[in-house]
């Protein structure tokens, strides 16, 4: 047991090192690796693991149109809930599915552990770049030449959900900058409410705020990874929210709980800066407030700017070892660009597509009753175009989220600050990368 564990750890270290070498040599290595992407002879069956509810409906359309490339859907819990670990186990055992759903923030982890096929040489893949919202494409290429490791599926551009009725009744202007947002928070607090809830556990939402501010947590080049959880922009965002917490201007309910839903439902909370999919979260959690909500772009750090962050979103990747990368790549491209497929996935799983054309689907052109009939998706489409394409996720995001969340939950209850938590997270992340034999620059 002990021996096999050591051997396994060694193997992982070796793979990571190899992958990173591949990463760093980039252009020279990639064409060789992706040079062969030929169609298979005869009919093939692909396996596709996804936790999108009802993704079978979209796959059904493909299966009817492509009798020779049948796709079999497998499912599981969401990525961090177990499916990523399953993918790694299956990659180690050599029986991974041909295709898997992988969120943007987990892509570097799979890349570093060499779990992804480069499908750049497959027909039509490189040319597909123009169809996607620009920032999503850099997330699946990692900036490498001649490399595409997945097809973007959905995104979570961020905006501000707010109680239009309450703002109007109180005569408070809807904030367009973070400065105005804080001023509004003071006025709202005077009326007994809170402008927002600071989520102690949604570190990826906080990352979205940092992303908007122009911060970058990770970057990598030939010499290894740079970790920067405490850069100038991150510090600015952390200190801003720390100020709101210290002055009791935001609530600190644990998110996704009944308490939290109830605070929205009882009109105690007035805004939520969240992603496009949050539209359904509020509608479901705060049914009594129907019709009173509206959506505006995120408040800005500079008046007149239009930067947006992103929270969530995933890709369809071809996993290493697939016998049919050509067919798998064709299916992945179709699934995430075909209007019928995107419409079906939006209907069953509320996804917001990563393609430019996806934002124009009829379903996104309609006014939404819960938001007083506002065409809210126009705001999100605009936000999606304003997301900085240079944000890079690190290879150990699950660890980063856990470590920072530990500190954040301390900070909201008065022990330490958000910045302390990020500083601790920075150290823990560097240690985790080193422990996984991933080169780090300090």
């Amino acid at each position, binding site marked *: 047991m002990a021996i096999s564990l050591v051997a396994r750890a060694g193997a992982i270290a070796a793979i990571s090192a190899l992958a990173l070498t591949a990463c760093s040599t980039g252009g020279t290595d990639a064409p060789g690796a992706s040079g062969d992407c030929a169609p298979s002879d005869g009919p093939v069956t692909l*396996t596709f*693991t996804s*936790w*999108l*509810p*009802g993704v079978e409906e979209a796959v059904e359309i493909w299966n009817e149109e492509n009798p020779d490339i049948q796709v079999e859907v*497998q*499912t*599981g*819990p*969401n990525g961090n*809930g*177990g499916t990523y*670990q*399953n993918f790694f*186990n*299956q990659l*180690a*055992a*050599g*029986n991974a*599915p041909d295709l898997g759903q992988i969120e943007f923030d987990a892509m570097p982890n799979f890349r570093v552990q060499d779990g992804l096929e480069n499908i750049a040489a497959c027909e039509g893949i490189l040319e597909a770049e123009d169809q996607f919202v620009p920032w999503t494409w850099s997330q699946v290429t990692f900036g490498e030449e001649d490399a595409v490791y997945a097809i973007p599926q959905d995104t979570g551009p961020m905006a501000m959900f707010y109680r239009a009725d309450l703002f109007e009744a109180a005569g408070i202007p809807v904030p367009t900058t973070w400065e105005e947002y804080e001023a509004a928070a003071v006025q709202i607090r005077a009326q007994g409410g809170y402008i927002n809830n600071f989520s102690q556990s949604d570190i990826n939402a906080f990352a979205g705020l940092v992303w908007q501010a122009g911060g970058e947590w990770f970057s990598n080049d030939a010499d290894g990874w740079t970790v920067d959880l405490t850069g100038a922009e991150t510090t600015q965002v952390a200190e801003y929210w720390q100020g709101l917490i210290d002055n009791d201007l935001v609530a600190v309910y644990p998110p*996704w709980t*009944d308490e939290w*839903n*109830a605070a929205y*439902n009882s009109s105690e909370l007035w805004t939520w800066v969240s992603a496009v*999919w949050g539209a*359904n*979260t509020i*509608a*479901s*959690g*705060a*049914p*009594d407030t129907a019709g009173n909500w509206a959506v505006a772009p995120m408040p800005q750090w500079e008046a007149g700017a239009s930067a947006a962050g992103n929270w969530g979103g995933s890709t369809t990747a071809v996993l290493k070892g697939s016998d049919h990368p050509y067919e798998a790549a064709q299916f992945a491209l179709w699934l995430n660009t075909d209007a019928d497929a995107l419409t079906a996935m939006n209907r069953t*799983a*509320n*996804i917001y597509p990563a393609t430019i054309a996806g934002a124009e689907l009829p379903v996104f052109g309609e006014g939404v009753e819960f938001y007083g009939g506002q065409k809210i998706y126009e705001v999100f489409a605009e936000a999606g175009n304003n997301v900085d394409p240079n944000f890079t996720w690190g290879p150990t995001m699950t660890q980063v989220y856990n470590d920072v969340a530990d500190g954040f939950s301390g900070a909201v209850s008065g022990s330490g600050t958000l910045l302390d938590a990020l500083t601790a997270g920075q150290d823990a992340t560097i240690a985790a990368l080193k422990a996984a034999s991933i080169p780090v620059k300090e």
Partner: protein
Amino acid sequence: MTVSTDTRALRTQGVKKRPARDGGIRESAVSRTVAMAVMIVATLYFLTPLWWLLVASTKTRGDFTTTNPLWFADFALFDNIAALVTYRDGVFLQWLGNSALYAGVGALLATLIAAMAGYAIAKYTFRGRETLFNVILGGVLVPATALALPLFLLFSQAGATNTIWAVLLPSLVSPFGVYLSRIYAAASVPDEIIEAARIDGAGEVRTFFTVATRLMAPALVTIFLFQFVAIWNNFFLPLIMLRDENLFPVTLGLYVWNTQVSQIPDIRALVVIGSLLSIIPLIVTFLALQRFWQSGLANGGLK
């Protein structure tokens, strides 16, 4: 059993040595009140979540977040059940059926195997008997979770992941069951009866099935119950092994739904009502088999 009787006797003696007024052993009112209070708190602690589950299951989606979580609002239990069993073509019923299959068949076979092994270790002398028993006993200390990944790699080699067997086969072993069978067989199956059966011409297998299993019945019920509950609640092994939704046991299925809440917030209501329905078979099994269990333990205590 002997040990426990001895200690009880000792304890009684110990008490008697103390000068007793009123001629009997009475606990003081204070200690009884404290004990009651502790029990009440413990009961509330364990039953409140169940109560919450029961109440939440009867609510409409709107009332779920807006009304007092510990008291009833509009009664919508049957609507919720209808929504649950029709969602995605009734996949929930399939999961319940899978759980019943894994837990029922698994526990039955596991009980049989454990009974045979325990009986053999208790009643036959052979070289390495104690070593074998100690190794099995060591198995009690290894958590099932720790074995899931090695099992996955083994089943991958055999190409048997994502099949019924991937969950059923590992459920067939119960080191604790072997331990219990051995202890119980040693205490409740007298050698004389086995001798008598042999003299009457019964083979070893027949002796085991017709004589020993009946004497061991209370222990077997216990093993069955333990194993049934363990398999029903086993979550990690199916999580790692299974990818086909139609093979999921109910625990894994509900967990998968629960992780989809951010995509489909409404699914939360189904997770709640599904959780309530998923514990009913456990309660039924317990109540149905409890009789055997209690009488068995009492019998053991009297001997």
